[in-house]
């Protein structure tokens, strides 16, 4: 089929040819007429091109596109396309305006910066919370946010973690930088003052309450011991034993709570020193051998001389907690294997047991305080419910985290890894 442009052109050509033919037939000027036709045809094209150009430039309002032949069709198609583009651009503009309006209304402060830290745009909360001004667009972010901690974070280029900043004396912000859109970065700040204070209150409460509970408990325990040793009716033997067991347990819980709150408060930010892990594990082995009287098979696989930088006492409690958990939750005669080794990624500690295993839905919640997988069982086995919470916090201080893998009915493996920069390898051959 012929395209509509060609059709229009042919209509004009044939129409004009008929006229020319009629004119030549009447006058008999055949040559002159055909020459005139060719000149007219070319002239009309040139004139149309000129008109089309004028119209497409759009400088004068009077310019109209050519109305006949091929050029009218071309003009029609061009204007159709243009209208579609305009519509698309309108839509995009609308969308970008909508996005801009949404970003202005976000409750967090959002600032976009380029690779040289020049501010590109910012939203309204950024002016309110961070003290930036609209005029600051085009300035460097360091010029306004001068906190040394922030500068260090910005320069480090490692934005996996968020930092907390105190601005205006009292407001606390969580600040995070996200890489986006080629080399640009998004700085997001959220006001966490209330949350922070709440956490502080909780920490203080736990620390104070545990401290206050410890004194009466000591008195209670002392008198119970005294009563047990004094001559008494044998029917009181069992109650006294139970009572004294429970006070011991309660004291363990309080000790753990105090440890936890001191870790959280950061007061054990003691010096990081060399920790002789193999030696600690040797000691633990001796302690655990007594605990595992019920015939657990213990297997230790320890790389000698593999030491790390860290805090000795807290790390010891980590290993102890993981090990005693493994023994507590495996059946008599089960095998518990402990490994301490190093590879290309760092030093690893792991404890595997052949116990009950933990179903996947419980694993993320294991480090919560007093979280029990099985409410009835755990009380019998006598844990405080705080062991893994302590483990989590201590590992946090060592830039590590608890790794758990478990299959119900098969067994569990608890472990942690320490980065290579903490590893100190002593005498390799020892």
């Amino acid at each position, binding site marked *: 089929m012929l395209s509509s442009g060609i059709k229009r052109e042919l209509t004009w050509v044939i129409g004009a040819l008929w006229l020319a033919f009629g004119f030549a037939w009447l006058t008999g000027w055949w040559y002159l007429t055909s020459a005139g036709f060719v000149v007219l045809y070319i002239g009309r094209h040139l004139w149309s091109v000129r008109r089309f150009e004028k119209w497409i430039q759009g400088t004068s309002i009077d310019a109209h596109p050519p109305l006949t032949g091929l050029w009218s069709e071309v003009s029609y198609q061009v204007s159709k396309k243009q209208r579609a583009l305009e519509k698309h651009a309108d839509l995009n503009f609308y969308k970008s305006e909508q996005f801009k309006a949404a970003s202005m209304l976000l409750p967090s402060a959002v600032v976009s910066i380029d690779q040289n830290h020049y501010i590109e745009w910012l939203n309204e909360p950024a002016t309110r919370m961070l*003290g930036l001004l609209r005029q*600051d667009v085009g300035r460097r972010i360091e010029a*306004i946010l*001068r*906190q*040394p901690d922030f500068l260090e974070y910005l320069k480090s280029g490692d934005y996996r973690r968020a930092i907390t900043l105190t601005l205006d004396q009292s407001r606390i912000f969580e600040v995070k930088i996200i890489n986006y859109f080629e080399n640009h970065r998004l700085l997001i700040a959220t006001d966490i003052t209330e949350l922070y204070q709440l956490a502080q209150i909780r920490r203080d409460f736990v620390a104070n309450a545990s401290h206050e509970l410890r004194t009466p408990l000591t008195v209670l325990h002392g008198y119970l011991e005294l009563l047990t040793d004094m001559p008494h009716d044998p029917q009181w033997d069992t109650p006294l034993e139970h009572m004294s067991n429970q006070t011991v347990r309660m004291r363990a819980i309080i000790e753990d709570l105090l440890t936890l709150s001191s870790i959280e408060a950061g007061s054990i930010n003691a010096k990081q020193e060399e920790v002789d892990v193999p030696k600690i594990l040797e000691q633990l082995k001796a302690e655990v051998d007594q605990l595992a009287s019920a015939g657990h098979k213990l297997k230790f696989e320890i790389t000698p001389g593999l030491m790390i930088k860290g805090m000795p006492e807290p790390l010891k409690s980590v290993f102890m907690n993981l090990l005693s958990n493994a023994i507590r939750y495996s059946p008599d005669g089960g095998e518990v294997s402990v490994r301490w080794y190093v590879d290309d990624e760092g030093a690893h500690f792991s404890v595997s047991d052949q116990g009950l295993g933990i179903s996947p839905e419980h694993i993320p919640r294991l480090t919560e305080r007093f979280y029990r997988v099985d409410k009835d069982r755990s009380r019998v086995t006598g844990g405080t419910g705080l062991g893994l919470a302590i483990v989590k916090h201590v590992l946090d201080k060592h830039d590590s985290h608890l790794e758990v893998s478990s299959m119900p009915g098969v067994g569990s493996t608890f472990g942690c890894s320490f980065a290579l920069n903490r590893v100190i390898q002593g005498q390799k051959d020892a």
Partner: protein
Amino acid sequence: MNRDEFNKHISEQMNRNIEALFNEVLEMGGLVEQQLADLNRALESNDVELAKDAIKQDENINRGEMEIDRLCSTVLARQQPTASDLRLIVMAIRIAMDLERMGDEAVKIAKMALEQCTIGGDCTTMPAYNFLRQLMLASSQMIKTALNGFSRLDTSDVMSIYHEEERMDEVLNQAVESIKSELLVSDSADKVDLQLRMLMAVRAAERITDHALNIGESVAYLVKGQDIRNLDEEAMAKLLSQK
């Protein structure tokens, strides 16, 4: 003067040096701001660690001043800047000096607070504590305003710094009066000691606000090209409001 002027030199090296100098001043200012914030919190909550942090910060501040001096002499020696560039360099040296002095004064206060905390006392119960607090909070705010003015090359807040500084002179007088009256009734050497230490601390805090005003004046000179130090209040306000 406009911020963009820094990028209009034919010498690329000069652009970079000037920009680095500008950022170095602000970074050093950030250190002092942090130091004052730590000190404020230490005074508020008797936190010995924070007071120690504030004292330790002084080393970094001194290093910042040295770095600024080095950058300034580099630019002066290599590029012989004139006009606004020269003003920036002279003022950077001045501002760095003021910041360094502020850091030193803050250390004095921190040492006093530390002593008070370790004796077992509570900073909040010290004589004239409220005045010290007022002075410290004002100085934190003033240095922030002054540095923001520097980073934005904007003199609109210089007047407010000026007024605040005058108000703080008044607060210092009141503080001195209150310490004086306490001294008259104190009967033990320990108490007199404490009063005297406090006198030094409020004096140091007032000095910090003076230095903050100096920075404000430096910014005004940098932007307007005219010294406002010997002007009276009216002339100063007039000059600063000129476009």
